[in-house]
């Protein structure tokens, strides 16, 4: 147990699709469980990243809390991996980058169809939104990038098994997709 590789995962401004694709390793999760264990992850109730070997980051950076979580991962993970289009370049949520944030908020909370009690939510409990969505390498150093929307289960599998075996991960040509 003590020698297992610790894998932490998080989703910042993403859609959870990369986590789903990771789970698409299906029954291979049993093989993974023999050599690895989860640290902080949406799949566990561990809510702080501690001394992990690999940190898988899905999603771009949309708000102040994302910045905080990303830094926590960098501090506590030996290897940080940008997983999927959003963490690598902002992805689909970055489509808001060419529109003033206020316009996006107005559309949802003031001018939307059937909106009542129109106002922009502003409670102190809500983290501050950033004016743009950023790829994670603008905030922390990133060691590896797994492309795809999402990267396929085989990409996760090849990458993790290479890394756990102690060799430099490499993806065969047919696994490299950007869609």
């Amino acid at each position, binding site marked *: 147990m003590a020698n297992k590789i610790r894998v932490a995962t*998080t*989703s*910042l*401004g*993403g*859609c*959870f*699709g990369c986590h*789903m*694709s990771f789970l698409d390793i*299906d*029954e291979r*999760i*049993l093989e993974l*469980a023999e050599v690895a264990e*989860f*640290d*902080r*992850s*949406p*799949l*566990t*109730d*561990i*809510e*702080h990243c*501690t001394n992990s070997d690999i940190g898988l980051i899905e*999603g771009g950076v*949309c*708000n102040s*809390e994302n910045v*905080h*979580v990303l830094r926590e991962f960098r501090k506590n993970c030996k290897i940080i991996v940008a997983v999927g289009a959003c963490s690598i370049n902002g*992805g*689909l*949520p970055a*489509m*808001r980058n060419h*529109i003033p*944030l206020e316009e996006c*908020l*107005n*559309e*949802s*909370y003031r001018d*939307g*169809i*059937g*909106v*009542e*009690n129109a*106002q922009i*939510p502003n*409670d102190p*409990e*809500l*983290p501050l939104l950033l004016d743009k969505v950023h790829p994670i390498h603008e905030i922390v150093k990133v060691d590896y990038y797994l492309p795809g929307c*999402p990267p396929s*289960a085989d990409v996760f599998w090849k990458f993790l098994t290479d890394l756990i075996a102690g060799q430099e991960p490499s993806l065969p040509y047919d696994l490299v997709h950007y*869609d």
Partner: protein
Amino acid sequence: MYENLETAENPDNLKRVVIDPVSRVEGHGKVTLLLDENNKVKQARLHIVEFRGFERFIQGRPYWELPVLVQRLCGICPVSHHLAAAKAIDQLVGVDPENLPPAADKLRRLLHFGQVMQSHSLHFFHLSSPDLLFGFESDISKRHILAVLEAHPDIGLQGVKLRKFGQEVIRMVSGKRIHGTGAIAGGMNKALTKAERDYLKADVEQMITWADAAVALIKKVHCSNLPYYDDFGTIATNYLSLNKPNGALELYHGGIRVKDPQGKTLLEGFDYCDYNKIIHEEVRPWTYMKFPYLTDIGKEDGWYRVGPLARINNCDFIDTPLAEKARVEFKQHGGGQAMVHSTLAFHWTRLIEVLHCAESIKQLLDDPDILDSSNLVAQGEKRFSGVGVIEAPRGTLFHHYEVDDNDIVTKANLIVSTTSNNMGMNESVRQVAAEYLSGQELTEPLLNNLEVAIRAYDPCLSCATHAVGKMPLQVELVNAEGDLINKVMKHSDGQLEKLI
């Protein structure tokens, strides 16, 4: 019910406890409690803390991009968003649901049964089964899927494979397990090949058997913990769903049915294109998730629940035999009451739907239409507004788009399933806070109870805010003067560390 706990009268004199993030749910939320000096709960809220702005940034895009753009709202139910958008853009090209070619209609249904099956299996086995099999206040180090696979290898592996099968159905129809391309305006882009059909047929009987066993498992779990499972987080509410015209359970297309807490039908066969006449959404400043309500009843009492519990409550029957048998047993457990309000019964109804999906997939795989590539797309007269509504895994999902002369999107409105359960989740949190936690010293296992109540709804908070993410758990106690007197951090081993 518990609305009086939404906003405390004198928040400044209360201490704040926060669960952040709510874990083992899809997406990004937190719970805050305000307690008085006797630990009595005075305020409880589920906040959705992120925002992505889809409704604005898809404006200016051509409509045909919508099914592949908006499915990126959610990697768990991308097919539901894909198909809701497809149903909306069908209308933009002048094709109503009844005019869709039969092959396209059946392929879309097959795709969506795969979606509901995989999402429900994921939620039950990967996310919720640790609570249900080990107990709500069990050791934190056990509360994850790997521990379930170790302690209950048969159950865990069946769950993994049920989800896998749903994902494979999606891959066969749309080319990829997540964010594939299948539906286009007026139809589908390909039929199944015989080889693809046979590949799925090989496993489908086994899936029906396992899904049936999963229903038996949740029934046993539920009934061996009575009356707790009937009462925990339970609230009497209105329910909204799509239904077939004959009153059967429906996941792809139908009219809107609404029932009140006593089971009286308030709306029947309502055309969802007019959804804006019956549903409005209220904004509250403390969360990015809006609060939908039925305009006829009003903001106070017009809220409703959606999802598996609503669908099983609302339908008259299920048109596949094993799932119908399971539904009848479920209703019998309710003691003949018209509506079952138990929040934890969401799990039971969710698994009845997995069984229904497996049975329905088998029926569709036996239908030769799904191999017919001769007529996959219909065409009609251009329109400027389209509404697509579908029963996503988590409930009724509304997509509404308007376009200009150049087919560019000018307006978009999305009411995602989890948003419709916003008030329900908040009320369940308050019920648990008031009935099970109030007056006690709060510990990590006790706080998990609040998350158990939220998890029952299978909220997809990424959908709900068109946002996603995760945050740390930290509990702060603040005295009546507002000074921080106690700060506790939850660590990876489940130990609570006092920071102050």
